[in-house]
């Protein structure tokens, strides 16, 4: 030993167990903060990737002329600018290739860097005027290659011939509408200006600003300087929002919620460390008092505290950071594994600077502040008072209340109640677990409304008859269900009729369901059952607010000029198709045939296996078109579905991850707090056991203390958590969807259940430890 600070080393060796508990607490709180902030950052990155894929990575688009665009490009905050023009985006303006509506996009090559989805997978970007890039759908259907020529008809009746120089991937929109897409360069596009034709034609300039630039201010400055109207400025709202650069009123509510949650997480971390370290304050104060008696100055005590705290941080913080980062990696890995292709750019072993910075900040600051507390207390009183141990303990004004409780429980409650600061810190850290859980659970409510997850009945591809007739034969459906890549096929027939009930006659749409669709519908059933309907013994009414059939048990349906009685066997809440315009009823295929005389389908949905390839889809399509020709339309929703799946999966992984981590931390924090409290009173317990306290009494005493903390924690946690849950729900959900807040009973029971479980385990742990020690060892 060469320096007085070497004592820290010896002290750490001697107090290994207590040090381990403090370290564990630092690990837990740094882990909590790192994981939450890290996951939030990764989720933002994942969502940003998604948004950039579907909407592009540009920040704003300006409807300006060429001269203004040149000026715009010279601004220092602009990283790149590209013209972007679109015509026939709505696919009904009459720009066609081989009779198929074609959306034409004209832009500079720079724009490709802003639209990852518009990647050219074959060939190159058009350099010359009469060159074009086609989408994969057009390539496959027109059976053309790079180097071939295609002829495009304009609504003016002009035919323009383009040489194909490249192929681009289909976008979700193009695939869903089975449309052709064509890229040409900006010069070619300008020549397409329809002039007096009533087609939607516009040329925008897409801008991506430099990193770390205040995009809001840049857009505002540009708008003012160029005298632009609101309609001339288009912001990429989703991307800006994810970059915290949006001032959209809903996003402001969203940021508010994020800020509240961030503060809560930091506060929870701070409280957890402070609470655990406070349980050692009395002992530490005595120790520092002794050091001062021996002549240590305040500065030396502070240095000692600093070194000691640094020792805890040295292992506690990196461990917390590593564990937190590892969990973030696992979640990112899960995302990439479950949703390949969508999150390829999301690094599995990505490091979250925000999470790490927050973890280090919370760890260091709290440990140093909490560690200083006993040193400060020892310095405030005379060294002798400090060494006597009187400075570290709050003076008890009253003895334990044995009037209402037995001595063991009374003592336990008294231990908790005795030190108000400890009570505040420990029950505060419990309370924060509840508050965090209730606050974060609103994010789950938000998720359920913001992202409609992909349902089993969401088709990957579907055919529909263009004239809405039931011309798709059942046999075709059966045949196609055996095709490669097809998981299952289900069709629906649509029939028109009218219905009479309560003296009123209304139009009615009849929809035929097969048994699979009835099964999916069961969850949405409001009344009755699907069983009889499936057997062909009645109808299932689709719920509408102004339906006149709601209370009817039997209705008369008029189809094919005949009236037939049909039983209403139940009411279904919602169906995946629009039912808002008129009365709608579901029936079995058998009933449908009886009522309409038809047994084909108007829509045929396909659910494909995840490994189904484009060639499989093409074969299905060809087989269908062979039977039905051009009378059917085709829609490919796979890209859109993948995007929905990806967005909902990433949100679910991270949000449920948040709740899981909070629950886990609550669990360990309670266990650790109680264990630390017991460990700091080991001598007292030893004395109590020496005078005859049994193990049962000991258990009750520790449980009394733990229950007092839990009770106060729950009281404050629920007192603050429920109003906060309401406030966040109003900001996240009610503000946008108008749904009223409901009492979070389920969430409360989950977190209280976890607390109770951890309390029981927390009491059993020290009990086992005490049981294994003899009384002399304790005292």
């Amino acid at each position, binding site marked *: 030993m060469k320096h*007085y600070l*070497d004592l820290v080393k010896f*002290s750490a060796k001697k107090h290994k167990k207590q040090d381990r508990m403090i370290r564990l607490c630092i690990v837990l709180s740094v882990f909590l903060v790192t994981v939450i902030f890290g996951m939030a950052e990764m989720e933002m990155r994942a969502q940003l990737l998604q948004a950039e894929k579907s909407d592009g990575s540009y920040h704003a688009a300006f409807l300006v002329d060429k001269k203004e665009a040149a000026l715009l490009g010279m601004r220092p905050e602009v990283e790149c600018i590209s013209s972007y023009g679109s015509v026939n985006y709505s696919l009904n303006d009459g720009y066609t290739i081989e009779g198929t509506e074609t959306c034409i996009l004209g832009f500079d090559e720079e724009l490709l860097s802003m639209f990852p989805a518009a990647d050219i997978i074959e060939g190159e970007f058009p350099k010359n005027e009469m060159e074009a890039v086609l989408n994969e759908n057009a390539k496959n259907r027109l059976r053309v290659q790079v180097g071939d020529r295609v002829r495009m008809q304009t609504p003016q009746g002009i035919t323009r011939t383009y040489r194909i120089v490249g192929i681009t991937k289909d976008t979700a929109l193009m695939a869903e509408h089975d449309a052709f897409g064509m890229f040409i360069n900006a010069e070619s596009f300008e020549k397409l200006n329809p002039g007096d034709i009533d087609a939607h034609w516009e040329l925008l300039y897409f801008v991506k600003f430099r990193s770390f630039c205040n995009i809001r201010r840049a857009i505002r400055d540009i708008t003012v300087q160029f005298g632009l109207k609101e309609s001339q400025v288009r912001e990429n709202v989703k991307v800006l929002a994810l970059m915290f650069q949006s001032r959209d009123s809903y996003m402001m509510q969203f940021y508010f919620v994020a800020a509240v949650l961030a503060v809560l997480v930091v506060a929870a971390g701070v409280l957890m460390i402070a609470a655990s370290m406070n349980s050692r304050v009395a002992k530490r104060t005595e120790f520092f008092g002794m050091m001062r*008696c*021996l*002549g*240590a*100055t*305040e500065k030396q005590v502070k240095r000692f505290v600093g070194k000691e705290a640094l020792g805890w941080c040295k292992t506690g913080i990196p461990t917390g950071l590593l564990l937190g980062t590892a969990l973030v990696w696992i979640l990112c890995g899960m995302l990439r594994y479950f949703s390949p292709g969508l999150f390829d750019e999301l690094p599995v072993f990505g490091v979250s600077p925000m999470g790490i910075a927050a973890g280090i900040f919370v760890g260091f600051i709290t440990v140093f502040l909490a560690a200083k507390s006993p040193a400060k207390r020892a310095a405030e009183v005379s060294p002798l008072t400090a060494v006597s141990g009187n400075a570290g303990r709050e003076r008890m004004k009253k003895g334990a209340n044995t009037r209402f409780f037995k001595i063991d429980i009374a003592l336990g409650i008294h231990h908790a109640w005795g030190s108000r600061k400890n009570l505040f810190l420990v029950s505060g850290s419990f309370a924060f677990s509840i508050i965090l859980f209730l606050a974060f659970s609103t994010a789950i409510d938000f998720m359920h409304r913001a992202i409609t997850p992909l349902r089993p009945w969401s088709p990957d591809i579907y055919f529909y008859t263009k004239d809405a007739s039931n011309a798709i034969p059942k046999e075709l459906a059966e045949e196609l269900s055996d095709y490669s890549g097809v998981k299952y096929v289900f069709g629906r027939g649509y029939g028109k009729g009218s219905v009479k009930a309560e003296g009123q006659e209304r139009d009615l749409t009849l929809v035929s369901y097969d048994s699979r669709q009835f099964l999916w519908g069961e969850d949405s059933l409001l009344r009755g059952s699907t069983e009889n309907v499936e057997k062909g013994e009645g109808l299932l009414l689709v719920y509408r607010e102004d339906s006149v059939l709601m209370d009817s048990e039997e209705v008369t349906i008029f189809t094919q000029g005949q009236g037939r009685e049909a039983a209403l066997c139940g009411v279904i809440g919602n169906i995946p198709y629009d039912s808002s315009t008129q009365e709608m009823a579901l029936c079995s295929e058998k009933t449908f045939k009886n009522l309409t005389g038809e047994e084909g389908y108007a829509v045929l949905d396909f659910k494909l296996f995840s490994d189904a390839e484009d060639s499989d889809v093409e074969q299905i399509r060809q087989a269908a078109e062979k039977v039905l020709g051009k009378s059917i339309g085709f829609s490919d929703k796979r890209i859109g579905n993948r995007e929905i799946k990806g967005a909902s999966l990433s949100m679910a992984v991270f949000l449920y991850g948040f709740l899981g981590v909070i629950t886990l931390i609550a669990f360990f924090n309670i266990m650790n707090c109680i264990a630390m409290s017991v460990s700091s009173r080991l001598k007292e317990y030893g004395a109590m056991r020496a005078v005859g306290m049994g193990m049962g009494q000991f258990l009750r005493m520790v449980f009394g203390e733990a229950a007092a903390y839990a009770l106060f924690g729950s009281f404050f946690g629920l007192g603050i958590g429920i109003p906060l849950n309401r406030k966040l729900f109003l900001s996240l959900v009610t503000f946008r969807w108008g749904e009223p807040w409901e009492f979070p009973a389920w969430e409360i029971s989950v977190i209280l259940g976890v607390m109770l479980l951890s309390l029981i385990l927390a009491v059993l742990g020290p009990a086992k430890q005490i049981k294994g020690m003899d009384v002399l060892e304790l005292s």
Partner: protein
Amino acid sequence: MEILRVEDLCKTYGAGETRVEAVKNVSFSMSRGEFGTVVGVSGSGKSTLLHCIGGLDTADGGKVFLNGRDIFHMKENERTIFRRRNVGFIFQSFHLVQELTVEQNIIFPLLLDYRKPEKASVEEMLEVLGLENRRHHLPGQLSGGQQQRTAIGRALITKPSIVLADEPTGNLDSKSSQDVMDLLLGASKHFKQTVLMITHNMNLTTSADRVFRVADGKLEELGGGQE
């Protein structure tokens, strides 16, 4: 040579009905190498007096001069450094650092003063204390007498102007008490160390140069121990 001078020292605790005058206008002085003992019943103010003299507690009135310097005129930090260089404390309940060995406990005040312990003087101290074989033991592995001897070594290692001992034998058996007394007397005689010791044991006052009695906060000198 005067080492300690106390002038009109007063210390009061509490207020109103609970007011206790622990030390009342105490004045006395001690010279280098003198061995003084303080006797008195429990609660008479002995410990308070000792703590005020050592600067562990502040006084409400009066002055304490140690080596000619008024310790209450010093700032807290200055007083702490002065105390660690000029005052050695010995407590009834030893107050050893439980994490440190005997040798480390003894040199601890030197380390606090950023001084390098001289090997020879540490060896000498261990020998004088009879703890050569216990130098690597932790306090928990020692008897009460050995712990108190370690505490004495810790108090003497800085060669302070005065050693203040608050009932150093209070927790010890008669044999260990005698050992401790012999050590303190030996230090007083051979190193000209001034010692002021509180004790309940009148037998221990017989070897003292001066004996003081504190009653109700007032100090009176009873004379030399032999008397």
